[in-house]
Every structure is written in C-alpha cells, then in structure tokens.
C-alpha cells in the first residue's frame, strides 16, 4: 500500500486542466497572498517566515527566516533578492517541476519575499540548459506584470520591484550562492570567501542580497496563508513543512514526491512509494541527499543520540526523511535527491562516474579541490579500465580527507565526500576489484564498464 503524499507546493501541478498560465493560478486563489502581503508590514511577513521555521531547500537546510534576519537594512545600499534555480546537484529535479508546472507560485513567492526584505530588484538565476523553463518564467513574469503583480507600484502599494530571468551556461558552481552572484555580475563564477562576503551583507554589487532556492520561495505564499505557527505544525520540530523528494536510479517508480518532513522513512520511500527495486535485485547503496551527500550502505547500522537527547538505532530503511534524519546517520538530506543503487552495480564505477562530474565542475580556484577532484577521477577511472591496485583505496581515502575544510566554498566537501564515504564503506569492493583483475591479468580478460 502506498503512503499518500501531502501535496502543498505541487498541489495543482499535475491536476488535469491546470496549466502554467496565470489564469489557472488565479483560478485557485493565486496571488491572494501577495495582495495580503502588501497590506502588511515587511517586518510582520519576515516574522511569519521566521516562526514557520522553514529551512532552505537548496541543500544546506539553513532556516530561511534567520537568513533574512542577517540582512543589513542600514547600509543605505539597494537590497537584492535572487532565486537560485540553477538546479544541478546530480539526482535533483524538483525545481524543474515547480518552474515548468506552476511558475506563478514561484513568482508570487518571490514578490512577497522581495516586499518583505524591501528588495529593489529580483533575479531568477536559471540553468542555461533549461530553455523551456526560462521561456515559461519570462512569460509568467509578463503575465504578472500585465496584472500589476510585479513591476511599478505593485497592486497600488507604492512598492516597485522588477524580476529578471538570468540564464546560466552549464556550470554547477553557479549553484553556490556567491559563485552565482559573481555570475550575475558578469564574471567567472568563482565563489567568494566568507567572511567577509556573506551575501546578506556584501552580496550582489557589494550590496545586501538574499539568495533562496526555488522550493524555499514557493513555500512563502503558503506560510502566509496558513500563518507561520500553523505551517510549523507540518513535519517534525525543527523540520517543518513538506519537502519534495527526487528519487532516481534503480527503483521501479522513480519520480518526485511531496511529503511532510519526517513523514516517512527512507525504506518506506524506496520500497513502498517507489515500488522497490527491479525483479530479483537487492539494495546495495543509497545516496540520500544529492550526489555530494555521503553514501549509505545497505545493512549498515546507525546509532547515537538525536538533537532532543533520545537514543536511536537505525538500519538504512529506518532513517526518517527530514533534514536531521540523514544527518544523524552521518550523511545529509541535501537537496532531497535520493539515488538508489542495486546489487548489479559495480560500486567503483559508480564512484568513478561521480568523480568525473566533480572534476569537470571544480571552478579551479582552490588547489585542493582543483587537483584533488581530478586526481580522484583519474584513479577511479583507471581502476575501471583494468588497472586497479589494492592500495588505491587508501590513496583515495587520503586525498579525500585533504580537501574538505581547505577550500573557499563547499565544492571541496561536495567532491570529497563521495570518495571519502565510498572508500570507507565499500573498502572490500575496492580491494576485490584490484584482486580480481590481477587474477585475470594474464588472460587479458575483457573489462566491462558502463558508468564511466
């Protein structure tokens, strides 16, 4: 039996007859919350968002209300709002749905947020490859402008704010908020060092800036509709609201599913909601929060104490799907992207595939990340091409441990964590790969590889 979803953000998205035009959105009460917002004080809206406890849906899970609270309102400089729609963490495809299927929900959320932080100008930074997404948003903006829902003197409130769709050009690093800011400024998207460049103080054009994920901003109208306190009742304490989980890899029913935070476990998601693995296949590993998150191995036990002091002892299937569950198990929920790997997969190949991604996407600014990611890619690729050595697993582990914490941005951690966790948890398979090859070395056995 499938556990029913609770759709709030995706409520209208897949309904028959619902389109991404403004009439559909207005027909379900769209933009009513913007109307309400412009009658409130910006402080009151910010307070509701803070009370809601909504955490950033982009990957870091930082409370959005608190982020807004860091804004420097006294600098005298203009304030900017940026929506991070550079969805590119491997495994993640939730923002694509929100943009394609209900773009006005995002536009409304952004205009409420812009009003609440007194933004002078707002941007949606969308992935370059999402040609359709950019066109849909452009059209949505013009539809909203024609109805005075953005632009000059919004709904007669005296508040004006324009919204610009800015397309990226295929670089993962632009998802890092300071890299994204550099990109909008027209430069190479090299992330900035923090401190001093915390966007809320020194962001776009050295002005106070808020960067929020698509899903985070889509929550804003709902927070206003329910009220922050009521919203906070969805999910579990400290993990409020719903989340859209993107499930991919080797499950029967991959897709996007919206549930209250903590409303189900990883096991229920994989085996119940997604219909389990293919016939005769067994679960081997799960990457629980986008490809950067540390891998979980089937059969592993996780124990310790939760934030509230209570003890837990989980198998992989028992991990609650919220922000804190995967974190307690030593990984993270990241962007909510669950990649399922079954027992037919060569785990060294899976890591080699991810390492090729991170080596390609390192911006090259910091030596440990630039050199380390490429080195790890070269080793794992070589291992998959018949040249694995038993000592590779230790070398990989050692390289990965020398990257995290030593770079300007989190790409250092992102590129190191897969190698660190794969080599630690699947040490036996890395060694077996070398031994099996050596056994067949004289017969020149054909090496099979399909992921790299």
């Amino acid at each position, binding site marked *: 039996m499938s556990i029913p979803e609770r759709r709030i953000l995706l409520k209208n998205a897949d309904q028959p007859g619902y389109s991404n035009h403004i009439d559909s959105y207005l027909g379900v009460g769209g933009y009513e919350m913007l109307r309400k917002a412009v009658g409130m004080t910006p402080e009151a809206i910010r307070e509701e968002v803070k009370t809601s406890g909504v955490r950033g849906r982009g990957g870091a899970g930082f409370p959005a209300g608190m982020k807004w609270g860091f804004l420097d309102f006294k600098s005298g400089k203009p304030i900017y709002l940026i929506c991070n729609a550079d969805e590119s963490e*491997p495994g993640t495809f939730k923002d694509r749905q929100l943009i394609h299927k209900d773009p006005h929900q995002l536009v409304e959320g952004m205009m409420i947020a812009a009003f609440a932080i007194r933004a002078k100008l707002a941007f949606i930074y969308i992935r370059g490859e999402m040609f359709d997404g950019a066109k849909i948003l452009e059209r949505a903006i013009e539809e909203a402008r024609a109805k005075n829902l953005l632009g000059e003197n919004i709904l007669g409130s005296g508040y004006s704010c324009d919204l610009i769709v800015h397309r990226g050009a*295929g670089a993962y690093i632009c998802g890092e908020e300071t890299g994204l800011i550099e990109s909008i400024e*027209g430069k190479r998207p090299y992330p900035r060092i923090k401190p001093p460049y915390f966007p809320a103080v020194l962001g776009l054009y050295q002005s106070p800036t808020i960067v929020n994920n698509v899903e985070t901003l889509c929550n804003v109208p709902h927070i206003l509709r329910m009220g922050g306190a009521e919203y906070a009742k969805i999910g579990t304490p400290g993990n409020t609201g719903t989340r859209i989980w*993107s499930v991919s890899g080797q499950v029967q029913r991959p897709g996007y599913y919206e549930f209250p935070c903590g409303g189900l476990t990883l096991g229920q998601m994989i085996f119940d909601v997604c219909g389990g693995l293919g016939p005769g296949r067994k679960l081997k590993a799960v990457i629980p929060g986008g490809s950067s998150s540390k891998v979980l191995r089937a059969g592993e036990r996780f124990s310790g104490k939760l934030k509230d002091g209570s003890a837990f002892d989980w198998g992989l299937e028992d991990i609650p799907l919220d922000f804190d569950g995967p974190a307690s198990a030593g990984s993270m929920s990241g962007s909510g992207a669950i*990649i399922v790997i079954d027992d037919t997969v060569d785990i060294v190949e899976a890591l080699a*595939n991810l390492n090729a991604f991170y080596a390609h996407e390192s911006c090259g600014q910091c030596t440990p990340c630039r050199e380390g990611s490429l080195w790890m890619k070269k080793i794992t690729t070589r291992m998959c091409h018949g040249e694995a050595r038993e000592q590779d697993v230790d070398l990989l582990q050692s390289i990965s441990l020398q990257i995290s914490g030593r770079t300007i941005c989190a790409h250092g951690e992102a590129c190191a964590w897969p190698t660190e966790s794969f080599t630690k948890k699947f040490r036996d398979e890395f060694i077996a790969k070398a031994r099996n090859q050596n056994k067949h070395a004289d017969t020149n056995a054909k090496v099979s590889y399909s992921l790299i």
Partner: protein
Amino acid sequence: MNLKPQTLEKIEKLIPRYPTKRSASLPICHLVQEDQGYISQEAMEWIAAKLGLEPINIYEIVTFYPMLREKPIGRRHIKVCRTLSCALNGSYEVKKLLEKALIGEGHGSSNADYTIEFVECIASCGTAPVVQVDEVLHEGIKPDRVCKFADQIRQETEQMKTSVSKL
C-alpha cells in the same frame, strides 16, 4: 559583426535592465551564440566594446562556461546526460548507439549535421536517461529506444535542410 536585427534589438533592450552593463555579458553571449552558432573572437571583441569592457572579460567567461563555444558545431546539438542516475539507466550505451546511428561507427561524435556530446546532470533524473536535442529535452531514451529516436532526429534534420535550401 553581422548580427540579425532581432538579436541586436534584444541586446539593446537587455542592457538597461541591469544595474551594471557588465551583468549583461553572459546573456549577450547566449544571444550571439544563438545568432551565429558560436562566439568568434570578433564577436567577443564586439561584445566587450558594447559593454565598455576589455575583450579578456568576455573571453574569460566564454572559456569558463560549458555551454559557450568558440567553434561552430553540427546543425543539431545532441547532449546525452552522463551523470549517475542516467548512467545507471544506460546513458553510456545510448551515446554510443546515437553516434553509430547518426554519424557512423568509427567516425567520431561530430560531423556537419550532428554534434553528439555528453553533458553533466540536466536535472531530469527521474526520467533517465535523458537526451537534449538543441533546446528540447527528451526523456526516457533507454538504449532500446535509440534506433527509433535517431530516425526521428534524422527526419527532422532532413526537413530542416530542405526548408533552408528553399529559402
């Protein structure tokens, strides 16, 4: 520079929307590439002059972003997603089969009609493997569907060629 009037108009409209001219550099690169197929050295110099920048300011972004290119490519740009969820569903095989069907075995991955490349995760992992042809995303292109899919692309391409030659 021989840009189409529509492109020039778009560029003129774009620049004043941004608080600084330099912010328009990436969007203008996109427009020029859509117009010309690639961004030549002449184009980089033209964009820089347009925005009051040095040519290096444009060159450094053209060389950084994977989507921007300095050389022309085939008539159709085919990007096969390479990253894990697509790879787990056969994308390496898909790329090989597409090359074989559209370009011919042993003839590389690009000719005048087609440029076939891998691309990193394009955020549609739930419908893996995915292939983007020019601006259109095609979902669920498993290896057993490639043959039909390649036929469809070939047909479209032939139609494009006939309509161009009629002009």
